[in-house]
């Protein structure tokens, strides 16, 4: 399990490949990799968004993120996982979050990656403030439930 909080832009595909190269000993057991990449959209609630600032709580953010992953590990047989979350100033199309889960079987990989994403969005201290095209700033007030539309 690896968790990274980063203030710099990152390429999720390069991160996954670099991470996989470090653990080639486990390759033969891996049958399924489920990856979720969350990206900044240029619209939200009907407005054009030109930038975003992501605040977090250093220490608590990492701690709660680790708890989310441990909860997933307790429910599904996960071989490994990588979670990276961006903080600071973000532009549209930038990657905000990467969740990658490696498992022997696809059902477990799908279930665990989705669980981690939903847990992250409901429990891990990150707060988004949007900069609109109008130059107004606006805090995002709540996350949607990813099991319904939205």
């Amino acid at each position, binding site marked *: 399990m690896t968790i990274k909080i980063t203030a710099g832009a990152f390429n999720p595909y390069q991160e996954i490949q670099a991470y996989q190269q470090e653990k080639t000993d486990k390759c033969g057991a891996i049958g399924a990799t489920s990856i979720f990449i*969350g990206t900044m959209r240029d619209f939200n609630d009907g407005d054009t968004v030109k930038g975003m600032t*992501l*605040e*977090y*709580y250093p*220490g*608590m953010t990492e*701690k*709660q993120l680790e708890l989310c992953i441990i909860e997933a590990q307790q429910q599904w047989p996960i071989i490994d996982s990588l979670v990276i*979350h961006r903080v600071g100033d973000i532009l549209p199309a930038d990657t*905000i*979050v990467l969740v990658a889960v490696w498992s022997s079987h696809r059902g477990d990989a799908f279930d665990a990656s989705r669980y981690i*994403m939903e847990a*992250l*969005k*409901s*429990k*891990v*201290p*990150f*707060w*988004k*403030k949007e900069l609109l095209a109008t130059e107004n700033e606006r*805090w*995002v*007030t*709540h*996350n949607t439930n990813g099991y319904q539309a939205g």
Partner: protein
Amino acid sequence: MSIKVRYFASLKERLGRSEDDLTFTGLITVHDVWNQSNLDQPLPPNILAAVNMDYVALDSIVLDGDIVAFFPPVTGG
């Protein structure tokens, strides 16, 4: 006893500060910490609380040296 209080995101902006240092005597709860730090306003209903980086209920007891945090619903991911 001394308690550090931290505020985040929109709550921090609304209060106009990111932290308080308080001293107390006797048995106090997380909610008491809020009231002592923000005499003029009640705790907004959707605000979450943590003690030492774990989520807690508002009636949790606070101990000397604890770091109490208040923040709005999280919106990461």
